Protein backbone atom coordinates (compact mmCIF):
# COMPACT_ATOMS: atom_id res chain seq x y z
CA UNK A 1 0.00 0.00 0.00
CA UNK A 2 2.77 2.44 0.97
CA UNK A 3 4.66 1.62 -2.26
CA UNK A 4 1.51 2.05 -4.37
CA UNK A 5 0.73 5.40 -2.76
CA UNK A 6 4.33 6.53 -3.24
CA UNK A 7 4.45 5.63 -6.90
CA UNK A 8 0.91 6.90 -7.64
CA UNK A 9 -0.15 3.43 -8.81
CA UNK A 10 -3.95 3.11 -8.89
CA UNK A 11 -5.77 -0.21 -8.62
CA UNK A 12 -8.69 0.79 -10.86
CA UNK A 13 -9.43 -0.95 -14.17
CA UNK A 14 -12.40 -1.16 -16.57
CA UNK A 15 -15.22 -3.23 -15.04
CA UNK A 16 -15.04 -6.89 -15.98
CA UNK A 17 -16.76 -8.28 -12.89
CA UNK A 18 -18.93 -11.39 -13.15
CA UNK A 19 -21.73 -10.76 -15.67
CA UNK A 20 -21.91 -7.00 -15.08
CA UNK A 21 -22.16 -5.03 -18.30
CA UNK A 22 -21.60 -1.47 -17.17
CA UNK A 23 -19.48 1.32 -18.57
CA UNK A 24 -17.47 1.99 -15.43
CA UNK A 25 -14.16 1.28 -13.69
CA UNK A 26 -13.75 -0.83 -10.57
CA UNK A 27 -11.14 -1.75 -8.00
CA UNK A 28 -11.37 -5.52 -8.22
CA UNK A 29 -9.32 -8.19 -6.42
CA UNK A 30 -8.37 -10.84 -9.03
CA UNK A 31 -10.62 -13.90 -8.58
CA UNK A 32 -7.59 -16.22 -8.27
CA UNK A 33 -6.46 -14.34 -5.14
CA UNK A 34 -9.76 -15.07 -3.41
CA UNK A 35 -9.21 -18.63 -2.25
CA UNK A 36 -11.91 -20.69 -0.50
CA UNK A 37 -12.13 -20.06 3.24
CA UNK A 38 -10.45 -22.48 5.67
CA UNK A 39 -12.01 -25.96 5.46
CA UNK A 40 -13.38 -25.87 9.03
CA UNK A 41 -15.23 -22.65 8.16
CA UNK A 42 -16.66 -23.89 4.83
CA UNK A 43 -20.21 -22.81 5.76
CA UNK A 44 -18.99 -19.19 5.55
CA UNK A 45 -17.52 -19.55 2.06
CA UNK A 46 -18.47 -16.59 -0.15
CA UNK A 47 -16.63 -13.76 -1.90
CA UNK A 48 -16.91 -11.41 1.09
CA UNK A 49 -15.38 -13.86 3.54
CA UNK A 50 -12.71 -14.95 1.05
CA UNK A 51 -11.70 -11.31 0.86
CA UNK A 52 -11.83 -11.05 4.67
CA UNK A 53 -9.58 -14.12 4.98
CA UNK A 54 -7.10 -12.76 2.41
CA UNK A 55 -6.81 -9.58 4.47
CA UNK A 56 -6.52 -11.40 7.83
CA UNK A 57 -3.49 -13.27 6.41
CA UNK A 58 -1.54 -10.06 5.63
CA UNK A 59 1.10 -8.17 7.62
CA UNK A 60 1.33 -10.49 10.63
CA UNK A 61 -2.26 -9.69 11.67
CA UNK A 62 -3.11 -13.29 12.64
CA UNK A 63 -0.18 -13.45 15.05
CA UNK A 64 -1.05 -10.10 16.57
CA UNK A 65 -4.62 -11.28 17.30
CA UNK A 66 -3.50 -14.67 18.60
CA UNK A 67 -1.02 -13.09 21.00
CA UNK A 68 -3.71 -10.66 22.19
CA UNK A 69 -5.91 -13.73 22.79
CA UNK A 70 -3.12 -15.21 24.90
CA UNK A 71 -2.75 -11.98 26.84
CA UNK A 72 -6.41 -11.16 27.50
CA UNK A 73 -8.41 -14.35 26.92
CA UNK A 74 -10.73 -15.24 24.05
CA UNK A 75 -13.78 -13.69 25.73
CA UNK A 76 -12.05 -10.35 26.35
CA UNK A 77 -11.50 -9.51 22.68
CA UNK A 78 -14.42 -7.90 20.89
CA UNK A 79 -15.13 -8.10 17.16
CA UNK A 80 -16.76 -4.98 15.67
CA UNK A 81 -16.83 -4.88 11.91
CA UNK A 82 -18.57 -2.96 9.16
CA UNK A 83 -20.02 -4.02 5.84
CA UNK A 84 -22.72 -2.64 3.60
CA UNK A 85 -23.72 -5.69 1.57
CA UNK A 86 -22.00 -8.64 3.32
CA UNK A 87 -22.23 -11.78 1.14
CA UNK A 88 -25.23 -10.66 -0.94
CA UNK A 89 -23.48 -11.88 -4.12
CA UNK A 90 -24.11 -15.41 -2.83
CA UNK A 91 -27.86 -14.68 -2.77
CA UNK A 92 -27.75 -13.05 -6.21
CA UNK A 93 -26.13 -16.22 -7.58
CA UNK A 94 -28.60 -18.47 -5.73
CA UNK A 95 -31.53 -16.62 -7.35
CA UNK A 96 -30.25 -17.72 -10.76
CA UNK A 97 -30.51 -21.33 -9.61
CA UNK A 98 -34.08 -21.16 -8.28
CA UNK A 99 -36.13 -24.31 -8.85
CA UNK A 100 -38.00 -23.73 -12.12
CA UNK A 101 -41.21 -25.23 -10.70
CA UNK A 102 -41.33 -24.24 -7.02
CA UNK A 103 -39.12 -21.13 -7.19
CA UNK A 104 -37.18 -22.49 -4.18
CA UNK A 105 -33.58 -21.44 -3.61
CA UNK A 106 -30.93 -24.19 -3.92
CA UNK A 107 -30.31 -26.26 -0.79
CA UNK A 108 -26.64 -25.20 -0.68
CA UNK A 109 -27.60 -21.53 -0.13
CA UNK A 110 -26.65 -20.71 3.46
CA UNK A 111 -28.29 -17.44 4.51
CA UNK A 112 -27.01 -17.07 8.06
CA UNK A 113 -23.32 -17.60 7.32
CA UNK A 114 -23.08 -15.74 3.99
CA UNK A 115 -25.78 -13.17 3.28
CA UNK A 116 -26.62 -12.03 6.78
CA UNK A 117 -24.84 -8.82 7.78
CA UNK A 118 -23.56 -10.42 11.00
CA UNK A 119 -21.88 -13.33 9.21
CA UNK A 120 -18.70 -11.24 8.81
CA UNK A 121 -18.12 -10.89 12.57
CA UNK A 122 -19.17 -14.50 13.13
CA UNK A 123 -16.59 -15.61 10.54
CA UNK A 124 -13.80 -13.56 12.14
CA UNK A 125 -14.71 -14.79 15.62
CA UNK A 126 -14.62 -18.39 14.38
CA UNK A 127 -11.38 -17.76 12.44
CA UNK A 128 -9.54 -16.73 15.63
CA UNK A 129 -11.53 -18.72 18.21
CA UNK A 130 -12.83 -15.57 19.90
CA UNK A 131 -16.01 -15.51 21.97
CA UNK A 132 -16.31 -11.98 23.36
CA UNK A 133 -18.78 -9.21 22.47
CA UNK A 134 -19.43 -8.71 18.75
CA UNK A 135 -21.64 -6.90 16.27
CA UNK A 136 -21.59 -5.76 12.68
CA UNK A 137 -22.39 -2.13 11.98
CA UNK A 138 -24.03 -1.56 8.63
CA UNK A 139 -24.50 2.13 7.99
CA UNK A 140 -23.57 2.08 4.30
CA UNK A 141 -20.27 3.86 3.62
CA UNK A 142 -19.58 5.00 7.20
CA UNK A 143 -19.86 1.43 8.61
CA UNK A 144 -16.23 0.59 9.28
CA UNK A 145 -15.33 4.05 10.58
CA UNK A 146 -18.11 3.85 13.16
CA UNK A 147 -16.89 0.49 14.54
CA UNK A 148 -13.90 2.29 16.08
CA UNK A 149 -16.47 4.05 18.27
CA UNK A 150 -18.21 0.79 19.22
CA UNK A 151 -14.90 -0.80 20.19
CA UNK A 152 -13.70 2.23 22.14
CA UNK A 153 -16.97 2.34 24.12
CA UNK A 154 -16.87 -1.40 24.86
CA UNK A 155 -13.29 -1.10 26.09
CA UNK A 156 -14.21 1.98 28.16
CA UNK A 157 -17.23 0.18 29.64
CA UNK A 158 -14.97 -2.73 30.64
CA UNK A 159 -16.62 -5.36 28.42
CA UNK A 160 -13.39 -6.15 26.60
CA UNK A 161 -9.68 -5.27 26.66
CA UNK A 162 -9.05 -5.31 22.92
CA UNK A 163 -11.07 -5.53 19.73
CA UNK A 164 -10.67 -6.56 16.13
CA UNK A 165 -12.23 -3.71 14.16
CA UNK A 166 -12.45 -3.25 10.44
CA UNK A 167 -14.59 -3.62 7.39
CA UNK A 168 -15.07 -5.78 4.32
CA UNK A 169 -17.13 -5.18 1.19
CA UNK A 170 -16.84 -7.15 -2.02
CA UNK A 171 -18.11 -6.49 -5.51
CA UNK A 172 -21.68 -7.57 -6.19
CA UNK A 173 -24.32 -6.79 -8.77
CA UNK A 174 -26.58 -5.03 -6.23
CA UNK A 175 -24.15 -2.17 -5.66
CA UNK A 176 -22.89 -1.97 -9.25
CA UNK A 177 -26.38 -1.79 -10.77
CA UNK A 178 -27.73 0.16 -7.77
CA UNK A 179 -25.21 2.98 -8.05
CA UNK A 180 -25.72 2.76 -11.82
CA UNK A 181 -29.46 3.39 -11.33
CA UNK A 182 -28.64 6.52 -9.33
CA UNK A 183 -26.41 7.76 -12.16
CA UNK A 184 -23.42 7.89 -9.81
CA UNK A 185 -20.95 5.62 -11.67
CA UNK A 186 -18.19 7.39 -13.57
CA UNK A 187 -17.32 5.99 -17.01
CA UNK A 188 -13.67 6.93 -16.28
CA UNK A 189 -11.58 6.27 -13.15
CA UNK A 190 -13.03 8.41 -10.34
CA UNK A 191 -11.38 11.84 -9.93
CA UNK A 192 -12.07 13.05 -6.37
CA UNK A 193 -12.24 16.84 -6.01
CA UNK A 194 -11.44 17.35 -9.70
CA UNK A 195 -13.31 20.21 -11.36
CA UNK A 196 -14.54 17.64 -13.91
CA UNK A 197 -15.36 14.79 -11.51
CA UNK A 198 -18.45 12.88 -12.57
CA UNK A 199 -18.99 9.94 -10.25
CA UNK A 200 -17.56 7.05 -8.29
CA UNK A 201 -15.59 3.92 -9.13
CA UNK A 202 -16.68 1.06 -6.92
CA UNK A 203 -13.93 -0.96 -5.28
CA UNK A 204 -13.79 -4.04 -3.11
CA UNK A 205 -11.55 -4.22 -0.12
CA UNK A 206 -10.95 -5.17 3.47
CA UNK A 207 -9.14 -3.62 6.38
CA UNK A 208 -8.58 -4.93 9.91
CA UNK A 209 -7.13 -3.19 12.93
CA UNK A 210 -6.36 -4.61 16.38
CA UNK A 211 -7.39 -1.96 18.87
CA UNK A 212 -6.12 -2.37 22.44
CA UNK A 213 -6.63 -0.45 25.65
CA UNK A 214 -3.65 1.65 26.67
CA UNK A 215 -1.20 -0.49 28.62
CA UNK A 216 2.43 -0.75 29.61
CA UNK A 217 4.58 -2.28 26.89
CA UNK A 218 2.91 -0.70 23.86
CA UNK A 219 5.57 1.12 21.82
CA UNK A 220 5.30 4.87 22.46
CA UNK A 221 5.21 5.58 18.72
CA UNK A 222 2.17 3.40 18.10
CA UNK A 223 -0.63 5.29 16.36
CA UNK A 224 -3.58 5.75 18.72
CA UNK A 225 -7.28 6.33 18.19
CA UNK A 226 -7.69 9.81 19.68
CA UNK A 227 -11.30 10.64 18.88
CA UNK A 228 -14.51 9.57 17.14
CA UNK A 229 -17.33 11.87 16.03
CA UNK A 230 -20.68 10.70 14.66
CA UNK A 231 -23.71 12.59 13.33
CA UNK A 232 -26.83 12.34 11.17
CA UNK A 233 -27.76 14.64 8.28
CA UNK A 234 -31.56 14.52 8.77
CA UNK A 235 -31.80 15.57 5.14
CA UNK A 236 -32.11 12.91 2.42
CA UNK A 237 -31.53 9.17 1.94
CA UNK A 238 -28.98 9.39 -0.89
CA UNK A 239 -27.93 13.05 -1.15
CA UNK A 240 -25.73 14.74 1.44
CA UNK A 241 -26.84 17.90 3.23
CA UNK A 242 -26.12 20.73 0.74
CA UNK A 243 -24.02 22.75 3.20
CA UNK A 244 -22.34 19.65 4.67
CA UNK A 245 -23.97 20.18 8.06
CA UNK A 246 -23.74 16.52 9.13
CA UNK A 247 -20.14 16.28 7.92
CA UNK A 248 -19.19 19.37 9.89
CA UNK A 249 -20.89 18.08 13.05
CA UNK A 250 -19.04 14.74 12.78
CA UNK A 251 -15.66 16.49 12.41
CA UNK A 252 -16.43 18.88 15.29
CA UNK A 253 -17.49 16.01 17.55
CA UNK A 254 -14.34 14.03 16.63
CA UNK A 255 -12.20 17.03 17.62
CA UNK A 256 -14.15 17.42 20.86
CA UNK A 257 -13.80 13.71 21.60
CA UNK A 258 -10.01 13.97 20.98
CA UNK A 259 -9.91 17.18 23.06
CA UNK A 260 -8.02 18.88 20.24
CA UNK A 261 -8.50 22.19 18.42
CA UNK A 262 -8.92 22.25 14.64
CA UNK A 263 -5.37 23.50 14.11
CA UNK A 264 -3.94 20.35 15.74
CA UNK A 265 -4.91 18.35 12.63
CA UNK A 266 -2.08 17.98 10.08
CA UNK A 267 -3.90 16.07 7.35
CA UNK A 268 -7.47 14.99 6.50
CA UNK A 269 -8.21 11.84 4.54
CA UNK A 270 -11.46 12.96 2.94
CA UNK A 271 -14.42 10.74 2.14
CA UNK A 272 -14.08 12.23 -1.37
CA UNK A 273 -16.08 9.79 -3.47
CA UNK A 274 -15.78 11.76 -6.71
CA UNK A 275 -19.47 12.62 -7.11
CA UNK A 276 -20.35 16.27 -7.71
CA UNK A 277 -22.41 16.58 -4.54
CA UNK A 278 -20.30 14.59 -2.05
CA UNK A 279 -17.07 16.44 -2.75
CA UNK A 280 -18.86 19.78 -2.92
CA UNK A 281 -20.56 19.42 0.48
CA UNK A 282 -17.57 17.82 2.19
CA UNK A 283 -15.33 20.56 0.77
CA UNK A 284 -17.64 23.23 2.18
CA UNK A 285 -17.68 21.56 5.60
CA UNK A 286 -13.87 21.16 5.74
CA UNK A 287 -13.38 24.71 4.57
CA UNK A 288 -15.81 26.04 7.21
CA UNK A 289 -13.90 24.27 10.00
CA UNK A 290 -10.29 24.33 8.84
CA UNK A 291 -10.10 27.02 6.14
CA UNK A 292 -7.52 26.13 3.49
CA UNK A 293 -4.80 25.52 6.07
CA UNK A 294 -4.95 21.73 6.46
CA UNK A 295 -3.57 19.42 3.77
CA UNK A 296 -6.22 17.00 2.59
CA UNK A 297 -6.93 14.42 -0.11
CA UNK A 298 -9.17 11.53 -1.00
CA UNK A 299 -7.50 8.18 -1.67
CA UNK A 300 -10.46 6.67 -3.54
CA UNK A 301 -8.64 7.21 -6.85
CA UNK A 302 -6.43 4.26 -5.82
CA UNK A 303 -8.86 1.90 -4.22
CA UNK A 304 -12.19 2.93 -5.67
CA UNK A 305 -15.02 3.46 -3.23
CA UNK A 306 -14.93 0.35 -1.06
CA UNK A 307 -18.27 1.30 0.57
CA UNK A 308 -18.60 -0.38 3.97
CA UNK A 309 -14.84 -1.07 4.05
CA UNK A 310 -13.60 2.43 3.23
CA UNK A 311 -13.68 3.70 6.83
CA UNK A 312 -11.24 1.01 7.97
CA UNK A 313 -9.08 1.09 4.84
CA UNK A 314 -8.70 4.87 4.99
CA UNK A 315 -7.99 4.79 8.74
CA UNK A 316 -5.16 2.38 7.87
CA UNK A 317 -3.89 4.67 5.09
CA UNK A 318 -3.97 7.54 7.60
CA UNK A 319 -2.00 5.49 10.15
CA UNK A 320 0.53 4.50 7.46
CA UNK A 321 0.95 8.16 6.55
CA UNK A 322 1.80 8.92 10.20
CA UNK A 323 4.14 5.94 10.57
CA UNK A 324 5.99 6.41 7.27
CA UNK A 325 6.01 10.20 7.14
CA UNK A 326 4.12 10.96 3.94
CA UNK A 327 0.86 12.57 2.88
CA UNK A 328 -1.07 10.67 0.20
CA UNK A 329 -1.99 12.43 -3.01
CA UNK A 330 -5.10 11.88 -5.10
CA UNK A 331 -4.79 9.46 -8.02
CA UNK A 332 -6.51 10.56 -11.27
CA UNK A 333 -7.30 14.07 -9.97
CA UNK A 334 -5.94 16.50 -12.56
CA UNK A 335 -7.51 19.92 -12.09
CA UNK A 336 -8.53 20.55 -8.50
CA UNK A 337 -11.97 22.15 -8.15
CA UNK A 338 -11.08 25.80 -7.55
CA UNK A 339 -14.57 26.61 -6.22
CA UNK A 340 -13.62 24.74 -3.02
CA UNK A 341 -11.09 26.62 -0.93
CA UNK A 342 -8.96 23.67 0.21
CA UNK A 343 -5.29 22.74 0.49
CA UNK A 344 -5.88 19.68 -1.68
CA UNK A 345 -2.95 17.35 -2.43
CA UNK A 346 -2.79 15.77 -5.88
CA UNK A 347 0.70 14.23 -5.51
CA UNK A 348 1.99 12.11 -2.63
CA UNK A 349 4.59 14.09 -0.71
CA UNK A 350 7.16 13.28 1.98
CA UNK A 351 5.70 15.46 4.71
CA UNK A 352 5.37 14.16 8.26
CA UNK A 353 2.05 14.31 10.07
CA UNK A 354 1.42 13.32 13.67
CA UNK A 355 -2.33 13.85 13.95
CA UNK A 356 -4.76 13.14 11.13
CA UNK A 357 -8.50 12.99 10.59
CA UNK A 358 -10.29 10.43 8.43
CA UNK A 359 -13.85 11.01 7.16
CA UNK A 360 -16.50 8.49 6.11
CA UNK A 361 -20.06 9.43 5.17
CA UNK A 362 -22.91 7.26 3.93
CA UNK A 363 -26.42 6.89 2.53
CA UNK A 364 -29.10 7.73 5.05
CA UNK A 365 -27.05 10.80 6.07
CA UNK A 366 -24.74 8.89 8.41
CA UNK A 367 -21.38 10.54 9.12
CA UNK A 368 -18.27 9.56 11.04
CA UNK A 369 -14.89 11.22 11.54
CA UNK A 370 -11.91 9.64 13.26
CA UNK A 371 -8.87 11.33 14.75
CA UNK A 372 -5.72 9.19 14.78
CA UNK A 373 -2.25 10.12 15.87
CA UNK A 374 0.71 10.21 18.14
CA UNK A 375 -0.17 12.62 20.85
CA UNK A 376 3.08 12.85 22.78
CA UNK A 377 5.69 13.76 20.22
Amino acid at each position, binding site marked *: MVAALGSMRSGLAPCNFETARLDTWVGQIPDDHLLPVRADLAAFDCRNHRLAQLCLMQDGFENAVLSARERYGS*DRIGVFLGT*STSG*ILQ*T*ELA*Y*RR*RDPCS*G*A*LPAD*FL*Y*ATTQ*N*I*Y*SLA*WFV*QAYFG*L*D*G*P*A*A*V*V*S*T*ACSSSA*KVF*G*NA*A*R*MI*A*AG*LCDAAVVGGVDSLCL*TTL*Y*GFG*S*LGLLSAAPCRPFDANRNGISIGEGAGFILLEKARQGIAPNTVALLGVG*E*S*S*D*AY*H*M*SSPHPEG*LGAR*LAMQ*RALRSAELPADAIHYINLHGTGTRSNDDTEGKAVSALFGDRVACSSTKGWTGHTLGACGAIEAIISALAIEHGFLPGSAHTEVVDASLALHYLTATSAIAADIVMSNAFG*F*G*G*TNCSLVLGRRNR
Partner: protein
Amino acid sequence: MKCFVEAAGVVAPGLAGWQKSRAILAGEVAYRFEEFAAPKLDVLPPVERRRTGLPAKLAITVGQDALLQSGRTVASLATVFASSDSDGELINEICKTLAGAERRISPTRFHNSVHNAAAGYWSIATGSHASSTSLCALDWSVAAGLVEAASQVAADREDVLLIAYDVPYPEPLLDARPVKYLFGAAFLLAHDRGGHSIAALEIKLKRGGEATRMHDPLLEELRRDNPAARALPLLAALANPPQGPIVIEYVAGNALEITATSC
Protein backbone atom coordinates in the same frame (compact mmCIF):
# COMPACT_ATOMS: atom_id res chain seq x y z
CA MET B 1 -23.49 -2.00 33.21
CA LYS B 2 -26.22 0.01 34.87
CA CYS B 3 -28.81 2.34 33.40
CA PHE B 4 -32.40 3.48 33.81
CA VAL B 5 -35.28 2.68 31.47
CA GLU B 6 -37.20 5.86 30.95
CA ALA B 7 -39.69 4.45 28.46
CA ALA B 8 -40.48 1.36 26.41
CA GLY B 9 -42.32 0.83 23.16
CA VAL B 10 -43.70 -2.26 21.45
CA VAL B 11 -45.41 -2.92 18.11
CA ALA B 12 -46.30 -6.43 16.99
CA PRO B 13 -49.36 -8.50 16.09
CA GLY B 14 -51.67 -8.06 19.10
CA LEU B 15 -49.28 -5.64 20.83
CA ALA B 16 -50.29 -2.18 19.57
CA GLY B 17 -48.13 0.13 21.65
CA TRP B 18 -46.78 0.06 25.21
CA GLN B 19 -49.89 1.45 26.94
CA LYS B 20 -52.23 -1.09 25.33
CA SER B 21 -49.78 -3.97 25.77
CA ARG B 22 -48.59 -3.43 29.31
CA ALA B 23 -51.27 -5.52 30.98
CA ILE B 24 -50.80 -8.29 28.40
CA LEU B 25 -47.03 -8.34 28.97
CA ALA B 26 -47.59 -8.30 32.73
CA GLY B 27 -49.73 -11.43 32.34
CA GLU B 28 -52.92 -9.70 33.56
CA VAL B 29 -54.78 -9.83 30.23
CA ALA B 30 -54.69 -12.71 27.73
CA TYR B 31 -52.66 -12.18 24.57
CA ARG B 32 -54.59 -12.35 21.28
CA PHE B 33 -52.96 -12.44 17.88
CA GLU B 34 -54.13 -9.56 15.67
CA GLU B 35 -52.69 -8.51 12.34
CA PHE B 36 -50.53 -5.40 12.45
CA ALA B 37 -51.86 -2.50 10.36
CA ALA B 38 -49.07 -0.37 8.86
CA PRO B 39 -49.26 3.10 10.42
CA LYS B 40 -49.69 6.37 8.52
CA LEU B 41 -46.49 8.01 9.79
CA ASP B 42 -47.54 11.65 9.83
CA VAL B 43 -44.09 12.53 11.13
CA LEU B 44 -42.52 12.07 7.69
CA PRO B 45 -42.88 14.51 4.79
CA PRO B 46 -45.31 13.05 2.16
CA VAL B 47 -42.56 12.29 -0.41
CA GLU B 48 -40.47 10.37 2.11
CA ARG B 49 -43.60 8.65 3.49
CA ARG B 50 -44.34 7.17 0.07
CA ARG B 51 -40.76 5.91 -0.22
CA THR B 52 -40.42 4.20 3.16
CA GLY B 53 -40.61 0.44 3.36
CA LEU B 54 -42.16 -1.62 6.14
CA PRO B 55 -38.98 -1.91 8.28
CA ALA B 56 -38.56 1.88 8.49
CA LYS B 57 -42.30 2.35 9.19
CA LEU B 58 -42.11 -0.23 11.98
CA ALA B 59 -38.93 1.25 13.49
CA ILE B 60 -40.25 4.81 13.47
CA THR B 61 -43.62 3.76 14.91
CA VAL B 62 -42.13 1.82 17.80
CA GLY B 63 -39.54 4.54 18.50
CA GLN B 64 -42.32 7.13 18.63
CA ASP B 65 -44.28 4.85 20.96
CA ALA B 66 -41.41 4.91 23.47
CA LEU B 67 -40.95 8.67 23.14
CA LEU B 68 -44.66 9.21 23.77
CA GLN B 69 -44.23 7.63 27.21
CA SER B 70 -41.19 9.74 28.06
CA GLY B 71 -42.47 13.18 27.06
CA ARG B 72 -39.04 13.84 25.50
CA THR B 73 -38.08 15.72 22.39
CA VAL B 74 -35.76 13.79 20.15
CA ALA B 75 -33.53 16.50 18.73
CA SER B 76 -30.49 15.50 20.75
CA LEU B 77 -31.26 11.85 21.47
CA ALA B 78 -28.68 9.31 20.21
CA THR B 79 -30.15 6.19 18.62
CA VAL B 80 -29.16 2.54 18.20
CA PHE B 81 -31.05 0.55 15.56
CA ALA B 82 -30.79 -3.24 15.88
CA SER B 83 -32.13 -5.54 13.20
CA SER B 84 -31.19 -9.04 12.08
CA ASP B 85 -31.68 -7.95 8.48
CA SER B 86 -33.31 -4.86 7.16
CA ASP B 87 -35.72 -5.63 4.36
CA GLY B 88 -36.22 -9.17 3.02
CA GLU B 89 -38.88 -7.98 0.59
CA LEU B 90 -36.46 -5.56 -1.06
CA ILE B 91 -33.64 -8.11 -1.20
CA ASN B 92 -36.07 -10.50 -2.87
CA GLU B 93 -37.10 -7.89 -5.46
CA ILE B 94 -33.52 -6.81 -6.20
CA CYS B 95 -32.17 -10.37 -6.49
CA LYS B 96 -35.08 -11.35 -8.77
CA THR B 97 -34.36 -8.37 -11.01
CA LEU B 98 -30.62 -9.11 -11.10
CA ALA B 99 -31.29 -12.74 -12.00
CA GLY B 100 -33.32 -11.61 -15.02
CA ALA B 101 -32.27 -10.17 -18.37
CA GLU B 102 -33.24 -6.55 -17.61
CA ARG B 103 -31.14 -5.51 -14.63
CA ARG B 104 -32.91 -2.26 -13.92
CA ILE B 105 -33.07 -1.54 -10.18
CA SER B 106 -35.16 1.39 -8.97
CA PRO B 107 -32.99 4.05 -7.28
CA THR B 108 -35.41 4.26 -4.34
CA ARG B 109 -35.32 0.49 -3.85
CA PHE B 110 -31.53 0.61 -3.89
CA HIS B 111 -31.14 3.33 -1.27
CA ASN B 112 -33.85 1.72 0.87
CA SER B 113 -31.87 -1.55 0.80
CA VAL B 114 -29.15 -0.23 3.10
CA HIS B 115 -29.30 -1.63 6.63
CA ASN B 116 -29.50 1.91 8.04
CA ALA B 117 -32.53 2.96 5.96
CA ALA B 118 -34.72 3.07 9.09
CA ALA B 119 -32.15 5.25 10.87
CA GLY B 120 -32.00 7.58 7.86
CA TYR B 121 -35.78 8.00 7.74
CA TRP B 122 -35.86 8.41 11.54
CA SER B 123 -33.40 11.29 11.38
CA ILE B 124 -35.37 12.92 8.52
CA ALA B 125 -38.65 12.46 10.46
CA THR B 126 -37.29 13.86 13.71
CA GLY B 127 -34.77 16.38 12.36
CA SER B 128 -32.20 14.81 14.66
CA HIS B 129 -28.49 15.33 13.95
CA ALA B 130 -27.52 13.16 16.93
CA SER B 131 -25.21 10.18 16.50
CA SER B 132 -26.89 6.99 15.39
CA THR B 133 -25.76 3.46 14.63
CA SER B 134 -27.41 0.51 12.89
CA LEU B 135 -26.15 -2.91 13.81
CA CYS B 136 -26.83 -6.56 13.29
CA ALA B 137 -26.02 -9.73 15.21
CA LEU B 138 -28.35 -12.25 13.51
CA ASP B 139 -30.64 -13.82 16.17
CA TRP B 140 -28.75 -11.96 18.89
CA SER B 141 -29.38 -8.48 17.48
CA VAL B 142 -31.53 -7.31 20.41
CA ALA B 143 -28.83 -8.33 22.88
CA ALA B 144 -26.13 -6.66 20.76
CA GLY B 145 -28.28 -3.52 20.61
CA LEU B 146 -28.71 -3.52 24.40
CA VAL B 147 -24.97 -3.95 24.94
CA GLU B 148 -24.23 -1.12 22.50
CA ALA B 149 -26.87 1.24 23.94
CA ALA B 150 -25.89 0.52 27.56
CA SER B 151 -22.19 1.00 26.77
CA GLN B 152 -23.00 4.37 25.17
CA VAL B 153 -24.92 5.36 28.30
CA ALA B 154 -21.97 4.24 30.45
CA ALA B 155 -19.05 5.54 28.35
CA ASP B 156 -20.57 8.76 27.00
CA ARG B 157 -22.98 9.46 29.91
CA GLU B 158 -25.60 9.96 27.20
CA ASP B 159 -29.23 8.90 26.98
CA VAL B 160 -29.89 6.51 24.10
CA LEU B 161 -32.99 5.26 22.32
CA LEU B 162 -32.63 1.61 21.26
CA ILE B 163 -34.97 0.49 18.48
CA ALA B 164 -35.06 -3.24 17.61
CA TYR B 165 -37.16 -4.38 14.67
CA ASP B 166 -37.51 -7.22 12.21
CA VAL B 167 -40.07 -7.87 9.49
CA PRO B 168 -41.24 -11.13 7.90
CA TYR B 169 -39.36 -12.71 5.02
CA PRO B 170 -41.05 -13.48 1.70
CA GLU B 171 -40.72 -16.67 -0.34
CA PRO B 172 -38.30 -18.03 -1.44
CA LEU B 173 -36.04 -16.48 1.23
CA LEU B 174 -38.47 -17.55 3.95
CA ASP B 175 -37.15 -21.13 3.78
CA ALA B 176 -33.60 -19.93 4.44
CA ARG B 177 -34.69 -17.31 6.97
CA PRO B 178 -37.95 -18.34 8.64
CA VAL B 179 -39.35 -15.11 10.09
CA LYS B 180 -43.14 -15.03 9.75
CA TYR B 181 -44.31 -12.21 12.04
CA LEU B 182 -43.25 -8.63 12.50
CA PHE B 183 -41.92 -7.26 15.78
CA GLY B 184 -40.58 -3.94 17.04
CA ALA B 185 -39.40 -2.93 20.51
CA ALA B 186 -37.88 0.30 21.80
CA PHE B 187 -36.15 1.24 25.03
CA LEU B 188 -35.12 4.71 26.11
CA LEU B 189 -32.07 4.15 28.31
CA ALA B 190 -30.90 6.98 30.54
CA HIS B 191 -27.78 7.54 32.60
CA ASP B 192 -29.64 9.15 35.49
CA ARG B 193 -32.87 8.39 37.24
CA GLY B 194 -35.58 10.85 36.19
CA GLY B 195 -39.24 11.58 36.84
CA HIS B 196 -40.31 9.16 34.09
CA SER B 197 -37.95 6.29 34.98
CA ILE B 198 -39.79 2.97 35.09
CA ALA B 199 -36.94 0.67 36.08
CA ALA B 200 -33.26 0.45 36.89
CA LEU B 201 -31.39 -2.13 34.80
CA GLU B 202 -28.26 -4.02 35.62
CA ILE B 203 -26.86 -5.86 32.60
CA LYS B 204 -24.21 -8.55 33.05
CA LEU B 205 -22.44 -10.52 30.38
CA LYS B 206 -22.01 -14.21 31.16
CA ARG B 207 -20.97 -17.46 29.48
CA GLY B 208 -23.85 -19.74 28.50
CA GLY B 209 -27.31 -19.49 29.98
CA GLU B 210 -30.72 -20.37 28.63
CA ALA B 211 -33.03 -17.60 27.40
CA THR B 212 -36.00 -16.68 29.58
CA ARG B 213 -39.20 -17.87 27.90
CA MET B 214 -42.64 -16.31 27.79
CA HIS B 215 -45.38 -18.05 29.82
CA ASP B 216 -48.00 -17.49 27.15
CA PRO B 217 -47.47 -20.05 24.34
CA LEU B 218 -48.42 -17.58 21.58
CA LEU B 219 -46.04 -14.93 22.88
CA GLU B 220 -43.38 -17.62 23.18
CA GLU B 221 -44.00 -18.55 19.53
CA LEU B 222 -43.54 -14.88 18.62
CA ARG B 223 -40.32 -14.70 20.68
CA ARG B 224 -38.87 -17.67 18.83
CA ASP B 225 -40.05 -16.53 15.40
CA ASN B 226 -38.73 -12.99 15.17
CA PRO B 227 -35.20 -11.97 16.29
CA ALA B 228 -36.47 -8.59 17.57
CA ALA B 229 -39.02 -10.44 19.71
CA ARG B 230 -36.13 -11.80 21.79
CA ALA B 231 -36.82 -8.52 23.65
CA LEU B 232 -40.16 -9.87 24.95
CA PRO B 233 -38.84 -11.10 28.33
CA LEU B 234 -37.34 -7.65 28.97
CA LEU B 235 -40.61 -5.93 28.01
CA ALA B 236 -42.45 -8.32 30.33
CA ALA B 237 -39.95 -7.59 33.12
CA LEU B 238 -40.62 -3.86 32.72
CA ALA B 239 -44.39 -4.43 32.81
CA ASN B 240 -44.15 -6.59 35.90
CA PRO B 241 -40.68 -6.88 37.50
CA PRO B 242 -39.93 -10.55 38.18
CA GLN B 243 -38.10 -12.17 41.06
CA GLY B 244 -34.53 -12.46 39.84
CA PRO B 245 -32.91 -11.68 36.52
CA ILE B 246 -34.06 -12.48 33.00
CA VAL B 247 -31.72 -13.93 30.36
CA ILE B 248 -31.41 -12.96 26.67
CA GLU B 249 -29.03 -14.96 24.50
CA TYR B 250 -26.06 -13.04 23.04
CA VAL B 251 -23.37 -13.84 20.46
CA ALA B 252 -20.81 -16.68 20.65
CA GLY B 253 -22.55 -18.68 23.37
CA ASN B 254 -22.82 -15.72 25.74
CA ALA B 255 -25.93 -14.36 27.40
CA LEU B 256 -27.09 -11.14 29.01
CA GLU B 257 -28.37 -11.46 32.53
CA ILE B 258 -30.60 -8.47 33.17
CA THR B 259 -32.00 -7.45 36.52
CA ALA B 260 -34.88 -4.97 36.34
CA THR B 261 -35.90 -3.14 39.50
CA SER B 262 -38.95 -0.86 39.55
CA CYS B 263 -38.39 2.83 40.11
